[in-house]
């Protein structure tokens, strides 16, 4: 089992080498590709499968070149049959493989809900733990340029509801690599949701393989007046908001969930206890979503420290519109976070 030899970063720091000198900086896209290549190198049981993953685009560059290096038997194109191919990946996983199933869009996952929810998530439990499902499903949130209703959804809450699944949303290149490797190393099915607008983000990323376990968030910026709990792309809006708020004399702490299920309850609660104010910024919708879960956590475990009602920054309750005029209004920005924080003072 090659995976037990890899160092795990359980520090909750936002990157262990981020302040080192002479460290290599790579993009979120390249961090993912590097993780996949290392997984393929380390373990002959790992394979990648998905629609068009071996084409010249290589899933926004995240699989580019891998089929040439590892061959079509380990980096394989797939029929347009999301549910069936999820079943195929599960079948491989329950018989000793570690498949990584890749979707260009999160929006294609609803086609495979039967196999994800009824099969992958349940198999370990239904077999009394005798048969595990080491399956990683990567899917990407799209945004902008009129992507519209079926190419831009953030469906993390659907999966986070289901016992047996883990749901990860890396915001940074360092996390993208560590969380993806952690997911491939895990014996349980994991949905890793990336965001297309993050692919060009760059930061220091160690060359060697390392693992970040599910359930560990990180503090992106420390503060004392308000906690902004965010994930995926909204981490960057939260960081921008924190900079703006600092200019106006308000100190914001930015908590990056990294793992939307399981949540890092300890990290969230301790931040809320410190600041006494909570804003949750999610890439998804409000109703029954991740923001509701984080708010409930604060109500259950930190209510006595709250100085103001919890606020949530989410998508409006409508499908994504195509027109740029509407799209611009659809997505919340740092300005909304700033205004919300100021109202809470």
């Amino acid at each position, binding site marked *: 089992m090659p995976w037990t030899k890899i160092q795990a970063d359980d520090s909750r720091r936002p990157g262990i080498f981020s302040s080192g000198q002479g460290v290599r900086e790579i993009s979120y896209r390249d961090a993912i590709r590097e993780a996949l290549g290392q997984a393929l190198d380390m373990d002959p*049981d790992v*394979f990648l499968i998905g629609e068009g993953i071996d084409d010249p685009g290589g899933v926004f560059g995240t699989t580019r070149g891998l089929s040439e290096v590892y061959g079509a*038997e*380990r980096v394989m194109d797939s*029929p347009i*049959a999301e*549910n*069936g*191919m*999820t*079943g*195929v*990946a*599960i*079948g*491989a*996983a*329950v*018989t*000793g*493989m570690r*498949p990584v199933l890749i979707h260009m869009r999160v929006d294609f996952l609803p086609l495979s809900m*039967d*196999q994800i929810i*009824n*099969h992958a998530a349940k*198999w*370990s*439990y*239904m*077999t*009394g*733990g*005798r*048969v595990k499902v080491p399956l990683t499903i990567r899917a990407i949130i799209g945004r902008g340029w009129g992507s519209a209703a079926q190419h831009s959804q953030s469906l993390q809450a659907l999966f986070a509801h289901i*016992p*047996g699944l*883990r749901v990860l949303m890396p915001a940074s290149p360092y996390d993208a690599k560590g969380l993806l490797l952690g997911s491939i190393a895990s*014996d*349980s099915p994991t949905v890793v949701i990336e965001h297309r607008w993050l692919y060009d983000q760059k930061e220091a990323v160690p060359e060697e393989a390392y693992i970040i376990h599910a359930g560990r968030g990180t503090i992106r910026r420390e503060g004392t007046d308000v906690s902004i709990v965010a994930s995926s792309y909204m981490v960057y809006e939260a960081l921008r908001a924190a900079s703006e708020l600092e200019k106006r004399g308000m100190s914001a702490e930015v908590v990056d969930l990294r793992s939307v299920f399981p949540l890092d309850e300890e990290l969230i609660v301790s931040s809320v206890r410190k600041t006494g104010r909570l804003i949750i910024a999610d890439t998804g919708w409000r109703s029954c979503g991740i923001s509701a879960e984080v708010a409930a956590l604060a109500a259950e475990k930190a209510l006595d420290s709250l100085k103001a009602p919890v606020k949530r920054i989410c998508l409006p309750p409508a499908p994504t519109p195509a027109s740029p005029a509407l799209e611009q209004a659809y997505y919340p920005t740092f300005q909304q976070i700033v205004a919300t924080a100021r109202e809470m003072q």
Partner: protein
Amino acid sequence: MTGRINKETLTALFRTMLRIRLFEDRVVSLYPDQEMKCPVHLCIGQEAIAAGVCIHLRKEDYIFSTHRSHGHCIAKGMGLRPLAAELYGRSNGCSRGRGGSMHLADPENGIPGTTAIVGGCIPIAVGAALSARMKKNGRIAVAFFGDGAAEEGTFHEGLNYASLRKLPVIFVCENNFYATNSPLKARQPEVNIADKAAGHGMPGVWGDGNDVMFVHDACKEAVERARAGGGPTLLEFRTYRWKGHVGPDSDIETGCRPAAEYEEWVRRCPVEMFGKRLMKEAVLSQGDIDRLTVSIGAEIDDAMEFARRSPFPQQSEMLDHVY
């Protein structure tokens, strides 16, 4: 007719069919005690398919099945003790009391699991065949499913990919003409399920699923093809379940199915037909069959007693095995 197959194989086929029948019969007689607190989908009347298919499989080959899987698991080598203990919800059941009758597993005997979502196991079996291909371990996979599964997307998606990759998998459709209470003719056009194989570029064979020799021969060819790298096969075996969709009772009196149809199939009991044939051809004597019946009965006594004596899972272990 049976002369080309050796006596050991014929006896093994009969013994497996009889074990399945007697086990299921015992579930029928014990179920009213309400100690088996899970839905049971019995396969009485369909025993020839499980026996005729699994006789060709090695211990390490994979089978995947459905909510109606007791027979498949027995034929593949699951012990009666862990099977019975699972029906009784005990901690030493084959799925440690987490699965019940619909979710049986025994990975050491090539049973990674069974699923109660119609058609769900089809692509999973294809994936197991892909795994066998990648690991070059020579294993093959079998998916057992009913006629209703041929209406599901997973059926076509699974067959498409298996054929595309020429994977070592066999699709075994047990066509018992009913999905719960909905008759086949209300659900599908008049096209043989086996003929759907042609559209997916693989051989399809259909025939009498109550004739274990037919099942044996059809599956033998499919297994040889799969092992030789010739790709998948779709087998459609026509059969009939004697009990209702779920539970130990008949559904004929309630008008779910016509009595004449049921009686016709009972006249063609797969176990009895094969037993008579083996006696006629002097493979087994009535005395052999009686002795077999007694010894299997004792094995079932032991399994049920084992199950009833076994401990339940601890409530504190509720969250074990979720991940």
